[in-house]
């Protein structure tokens, strides 16, 4: 387990910025109640076996005596590096993203299951959408009851969405909670 490099940190922050925008500050400086001391520490990022974890400092300190071979996970895993060196966010980061998301999309009940199977979000399944979405933005997908279902990349801006035909793709699927059942091994 080691802290992230400069380059690695920039890559991760860029990805996060797509989804949370200025709330990135909140994420990084979030006071945490974890750890046995009562004074809140802060969170940090750590790299372990090509996976990036978002953990509070108290946890990090106490995980140091676990050897590298045996340490499996700390806190929350938010993504992993590929062989090529690019960084992908995984579904396990959904909690953090959902709490701080700038761009949100709400799905109709009928198309929830379709998204959970890994399909993209179509115009016909769109319930609500936040304004000022630019193509290429990160979008977090919710159900109508505000249950976070996953996230993806916006394919069209908000205004374009209104003009789209019902089968047009609005959000490109990146991760959804159905992966906990489908791709357990990948996590």
């Amino acid at each position, binding site marked *: 387990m080691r802290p992230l490099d400069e380059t690695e940190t920039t890559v991760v922050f860029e990805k996060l910025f797509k989804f949370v925008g200025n709330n990135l500050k909140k994420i990084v400086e979030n006071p945490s109640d974890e*750890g046995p001391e009562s004074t809140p520490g802060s969170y940090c990022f750590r790299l372990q076996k090509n996976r990036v974890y978002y953990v509070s400092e108290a946890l990090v300190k106490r995980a140091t005596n*676990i050897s590298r071979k045996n340490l499996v996970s700390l*806190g929350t*895993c938010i993504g992993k590096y590929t062989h090529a060196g690019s960084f992908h966010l995984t579904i*396990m980061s959904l909690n953090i993203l959902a709490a701080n998301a700038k761009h949100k999309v709400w799905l109709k009940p009928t198309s929830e299951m379709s998204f959970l199977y890994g399909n993209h979000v179509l115009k016909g399944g769109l319930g609500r959408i936040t304004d000022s979405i630019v193509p290429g933005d990160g979008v977090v997908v919710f159900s109508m009851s505000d249950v*976070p*279902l996953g996230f993806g990349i916006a394919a069209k801006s908000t205004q374009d969405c209104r003009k789209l035909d019902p089968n047009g793709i609005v959000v490109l699927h990146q991760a959804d909670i159905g992966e906990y*059942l489908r791709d357990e091994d990948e996590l």
Partner: protein
Amino acid sequence: MPALTRNKKKGAKSQTPPTKQVTKPRTPPSKTQSKPQTTTLKKGAKKPPLKKQKKEVVVEEEPLEEDDEVVSDASIDSESEELDESDDEGGKGSNGFFSDDEEENDDDDETLGDDFLEGSGEEEEEEEEEEEGPSDVGSDSDSDEDDDDLVKQSEAIDRKLAKQKADADAEQQELNKQDESEHDAFRLPTEEELEEEARGPPDLPLLKTRIEDIVRALKNFKAFRPAGATRKECVEQLKADLGSYYGYNSFLIGTLVEMFPPGELMELIEAFEKQRPTSIRTNTLKTRRRDLADVLLNRGVNLDPLSKWSKVGLVIYDSQVPIGATPEYLAGYYMLQGASSFLPVMALAPRENERIVDVAAAPGGKTTYIAALMKNTGLIYANEMKVPRLKSLTANLHRMGVTNTIVCNYDGRELPKVLGQNTVDRVLLDAPCSGTGVISKDESVKISKTADEIKKFAHLQKQLILAAIDMVDANSKTGGYIVYSTCSLMVAENEAVIDYALKKRDVKLVTCGLDFGRKGFTRFREHRFQPSLDKTRRFYPHVHNMDGFFVAKLKKMSNMTKSSEDDDEAVETVEQDEVSDDDDDEAEAIEENRNKERRTKSKEDKRSKKDKKSKSENGNVEPKARKQKKKRSEWKNEIAQAREEKRIAMREKAKEKK
């Protein structure tokens, strides 16, 4: 008492001509009405002389006449009855009293049958006695002349009745014998029969009836004891039958038979054949039980709160959607978890901002519950030895939104070395076990578990519990607790392990807070455990409708190993020598010989580990060790004294508790 007296009276009156009160058509002279019915019930009584009978009749009936009201009513009834009877019998009697004996006897038979079944129509007898009282008194003079004939008739009828009675009794006895012989035939099939059975496929209905017979016999062995069969033989046959009917291997069925009385054993085995109800636990980090229940009801799930003792549990009766694949499940609002798995975490009762270790965490149901109770504060070490199970553990933790957990992959016995001794507040050890409590989930346990496997598990569990105890800080402000739980029913894996821990470490048992379970065994066959073991709890499928489970909560009193009562300084550094000395002494004194072997093994392990430690420490340790070995005799005396004091203290405590 009145019944007895009446019976006696009736017995005496049995010689009077038989007049069945029940059989009204046959109206013998009013005198004899009451007596006959009772007399018929009695087995053939001798016939005293008539005169005496009359006198006896008069004398015996006088006290009955005290109840005037009853008598008067009875007399009215009796008069009407007598009239009816006399009318009926008048018709018959005129034709030939004796010729109608057969008919009467038939009637007698019928009435006999009725009387037999009814036991004793004592009320009727009462009434009739009372009825006959006044009538007898009144009709004495009239019936004198008819007495002789009547007496003869009555004697004949009496004889026949007595015969029939005797026959009926004989029949009953024969039936009983037949039942017993049937018992015999089923219970102890001869070797030939057993061979025959063994040749073909097992005859299930036959086995079932035999099992039921044996269980019935064992429940009330005095009454149903088949001749010539010892209890042991019955039990052996029962074991064989249960094994072949339900599919258990002989070892497992043998241990179950030892633990439960026959009736309860049947209930347990039947319960193992069925599934326990599916239950889920609300994730309080994300939602509340009420809200979750609403959402699931909308999806078409039929559910109810689990029970009084849980605020987060829900039981699922049936569901239109797969309960393990709803969006709510995937979003981490609930976890599929058996009701018995709630119990160790409830016993552990973690507080916020504590350090907790879960020694065998996968798949993570209990770990996530602990995190929910702690509200994501504090710190949890979730350890799992098997690599393939780590993925599901990590996935569950992330799905449920748990952030205060470190997942590591160690053998539980190494954890104290890694995490440090005396560092954490609470430890949950849900030990790997034989799984004999969850046979309803996994039927392969029925045939695959042998005595050796149980021993291996028990050995592993003992090592793990010592490691768990070593990790806990006895001086922790809020904690110092270890919860040990297994999903097994075997005493060797449950009470024996706790007893071992109590001997080896300075811990004591405390109440789990789960009062609805059964208390653990304080003694079992040849084992005698410490009396505080009744604070542990056992849960059974047939009693509590959850998987078989065992939970024990220990509190660590001090950070020492259980050997010294002397200097604190010398203790921890010279632990190894003291442990070895004391173990030698204690091993002699203690009755359980099996544990000797294990202790020597673990002793050697400890010695090897601690030898390394002591060598690495400064050389002061070694001279100390030599000095202490010289003072061995002194140690022995002190230890013996301390042990006696403890025994006295325990006895006093036991008396106080009583």
